[in-house]
């Protein structure tokens, strides 16, 4: 793929070495280009990129609060429309906490109302900015600071909330999952999302070196393992048509993904088996 040359997220931001969230934004903005307004929920991304009086953003950017990126984006989109600037790409970024938990109502409203915007949830599967607390997107078995593993606990005891399917239930024209380890796939989806008339939602898996417990160099490798094991499926739903966008030729055992991260290190054979079963069912259901 010929990647667009221009960058719209400047270096010097305070993201950790190996930060996947910075990469999500870098790739998304490369695709959407200069004619973009960004809205962000409170979280790592906003904190690390806007330390007053500096900003890493080279497109217009607004942050208001944690739970309202969907609503702020709605207001921005309509104000642009009122000014006759309907060609501007409106992209909202929220972490999993800001999207699947506290921000769900505001996203749901924005999607249901049909605003012409793209919402990208960068999912690192816990509240990383406050120090790795579990969210509704934390997978079963992960140890976080509020779902720690212990002598009588295997960690998080609920499966991950299925946000892309919640978005699909809104009947919006474009929904996709993505991974930072598959940049062409992700950028193609950003292209489709921003070209869609109406709301689009992309849920991207973003390995977090600090929160998941792995060497910064492994960010991409672990994201890839997530996809190759079937733990993180890549698909899109375009005008109601479901399509898997990447199928591993031979799915790797999920234990390879689990053992690469500190958050799953405590799991025993029984738990690993249970997760493998969960992944198998998911892949069967999605046709992977």
């Amino acid at each position, binding site marked *: 793929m010929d*990647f667009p*040359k221009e*960058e719209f*997220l*400047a*270096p*010097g*931001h*305070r*993201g*950790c*070495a*190996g*930060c*996947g969230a*910075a*990469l999500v934004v*870098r*790739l998304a903005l490369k695709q959407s280009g200069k004619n973009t307004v960004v809205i962000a929920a409170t979280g790592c991304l906003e904190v690390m*990129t*806007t*330390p*007053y*009086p*500096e*900003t*890493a*953003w*080279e*497109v217009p950017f607004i942050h208001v609060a944690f739970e309202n990126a969907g609503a702020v984006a709605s207001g921005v989109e309509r104000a642009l429309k009122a000014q006759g600037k309907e060609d501007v790409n409106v992209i909202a970024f929220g972490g999993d906490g800001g999207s699947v938990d506290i921000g769900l109502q505001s996203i749901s409203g924005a999607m249901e109302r049909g605003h012409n915007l793209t919402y990208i949830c960068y999912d690192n599967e816990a509240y990383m900015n406050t120090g790795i607390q579990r969210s509704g997107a934390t997978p079963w078995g992960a140890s976080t600071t509020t779902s720690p593993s212990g002598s009588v606990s295997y960690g998080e005891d609920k499966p991950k909330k299925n946000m892309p399917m919640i978005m699909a239930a809104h009947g919006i024209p474009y929904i996709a999952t993505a991974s*930072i380890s598959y*940049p062409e796939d992700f950028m193609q989806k950003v292209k489709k999302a921003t070209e869609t008339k109406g709301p689009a939602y992309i849920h991207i898996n973003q390995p977090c*070196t600090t929160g998941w417990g792995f*060497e*910064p*160099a*492994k*960010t*991409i*490798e672990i994201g890839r393992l997530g996809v190759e094991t079937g733990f993180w499926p890549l698909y899109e739903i375009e005008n109601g048509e479901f399509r898997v966008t990447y199928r591993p030729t031979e799915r790797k055992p999920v234990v390879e993904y689990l053992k690469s991260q500190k958050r799953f290190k405590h799991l025993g054979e029984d738990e690993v088996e249970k997760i493998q079963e969960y992944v198998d069912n998911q892949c069967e259901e999605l046709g992977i």
Partner: protein
Amino acid sequence: MTTSVGCTIDKPGSTRVNKTGSWRTFKPILNKDKCVECDNCYIFCPEGSINQEYGIDYDFCKGCGICSNECPVNAIEMEIDN
């Protein structure tokens, strides 16, 4: 008063004053002879510190090592940065 109205920042990309290269422990060194121009290092860098000609901007490279890890031909070595 030292802040702008509403703390709006009108200098896009101004985090460039913050040279994050100082965070680095390991430094990526590219052996151009081995490079197969696959673009992995360029596209996977969270800092955008590697350009399309595979030049590394050490002012900002945090030394995460993703470029080295993702290089299919081991053309990038991570060395202790003195």
